[in-house]
């Protein structure tokens, strides 16, 4: 976990750096509070980095070991594409395509994938659009 914790420290440092940079572009009268909270985060991050650096290595508890990375990236990619597609094809059409492709990619049978994707999308449309009157994202189809 030591490596992972060091990585966390550097990510937090980058976040602090980003916010300091953004603060420098604010008018002077508005910077006091953002500087205060960012500095609190910076101090805590530095304490974290120092204590982690002084800790002994323990490889066993690495939270990023033994993951199904391909599967995870596949889900992130299809989910991102789905959000892009919504504005083009509309919520219902893109949901059918998204659920179908994800289920298929996760090795669910073709028949079950088709049934679930169409059944789920119809349920969502009826429940949200017709019964609860919650607006769905629009596109060129539905």
């Amino acid at each position, binding site marked *: 976990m030591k490596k992972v914790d060091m990585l966390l420290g550097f990510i937090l440092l980058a976040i602090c750096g980003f916010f300091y940079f953004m603060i420098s572009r604010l*008018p002077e009268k508005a910077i006091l509070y953002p500087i205060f*909270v960012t500095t609190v*985060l910076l101090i805590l991050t530095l304490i974290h980095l120092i*204590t982690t650096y002084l800790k002994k290595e323990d490889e066993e508890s690495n*939270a990023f070991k033994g*993951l199904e990375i391909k599967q995870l990236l596949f*889900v992130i990619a299809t989910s*991102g594409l*789905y*959000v892009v597609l919504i504005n083009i094809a509309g919520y219902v059409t893109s949901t059918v395509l998204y659920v179908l492709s994800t289920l298929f990619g996760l090795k669910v049978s073709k028949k079950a994938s088709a049934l679930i994707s169409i059944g789920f999308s119809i349920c969502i449309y009826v429940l949200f659009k017709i019964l609860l009157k919650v607006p769905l994202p629009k596109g060129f189809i539905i």
Partner: protein
Amino acid sequence: MENILLGFANAFKFVNLVAAFLSVAVGIVIGSLPGLSAAMGVALLIPITFGMPAETALIALAGVYCGAMYGGSISAILLHTPGTSSAAATAIDGYQMTLKGQAGKALATATIASFIGGILSSVALYTLSPPLASLALKFGPAEYFWLSIFGLTIIAGVSAKSMLKGLISGALGLVLSTIGMDPMLGIPRFTFGNNGLLQGLPFTATLIGLFSMSQVLLLAEKKIKDLKGSREVKDKVYLSKDEIKRITPVSLWSAIIGIVVGILPGAGGTIASFIGYNEAKRFTKDKEAFGTGIIEGVAGPEAANNAVTGGSLIPTLTLGIPGNSVTAILLGGLVIQGLRPGPDLFTIHGKTTYTFFAGFVIVNILMLILGLFAVRLFAKVSKVSDAVLIPIIFALSVIGSYAISNNMLDVWVMFIFGIVGYFVKKFNLNSAAIVLALILGPIGETGLRRTLIMHKGNYMALFGSTISWVLIGISVLSLMTPVIMSIIEKKKSKAN
């Protein structure tokens, strides 16, 4: 008394009953699915309840909370995999009972004990909330500043695996809470010229990202498991009079513990259920039988974790300090409905609040009925594969984040915070502390700056009242708790 009766009259309206019934059922399903959490369910439900009357919305949110807390026991008993972390202690004796062919009896025990815990916690909600809320009347801007600091220190200090990481999570949330318009000067901060961010990060979308989409990614990183091999419920879901007599005292005592743990910010259902399990063991004569599958071992943790529900709502509704991630999200739901925690909830908005309290009682009764008569159905649902849950939860997260302001920007915020939330969990940071900081950040900032403006920049004004000093004292104490506890543990182990 009049308010209480009026609350029940309102809660029995058809729409509220339907909301209570459906939300409990949805909550039980979410709770029973390993990998899905009450926080996820409540976060997804907030946008759906947006257009409902405030009391109906709150009843629905409480229904999911209570249902999920109970539902976790179903997979703990049948699969030896707790549906929610709060049901981990239930799995110890619950699964042993299943192996002995007593799954029905274990489920009936979990249902009845959860009901006792939930109902007793509603009594606490009725009796403890109004006096605590009236305390908030004495709060000025300086006190609100210290209250937000207290809320952050306690959740960061107690709930994270490492206190430093808890504090880092809180500080990160505070930094994120500065995105949006400066509350005093009206100057946009870190909005990149985007008007959608002027009001700050879209709260519901951020929540759905942190709690729902992150869950999708956590399911996706693991090998998809086949749950078809789980055990069936072969016996009746039923307890005899003698058995009910056996579990009642254990459940009542564990429920009281659950309420107290629930009120303490930062502790929550998991801690309560383990204390409940240990207390049940202490209470029962046949201590050796614990772990081999006895009903007291199921009743203790289940009464305790469901008692947390009402307990944790008390500081949330009265002082605006949510003790765990679910109540942090519920607080967001409250604010979206235009309600502010504090004394107003019991005076100006008394009708809504007491209807919600009555709804909370009804939710627990419906949970008992559904648990006793439909648990076999829920048991079947708990076997749905993660492969199916992954796209379905994400598609629901998209609708949920879009629905509040009909804006695709919110969907992208949800997507980004989903990935952030995944790493938050992987790095052992604390999502609840981040959410709490997002809520408390603006309150603290406004309190701080208002105090300074009112006293012409004199920082000593922050230390002007007794309440401020009490809040500072308990904030320091909450930060010291882990240190004190470890000293006591060391002394104990030396003595042994």
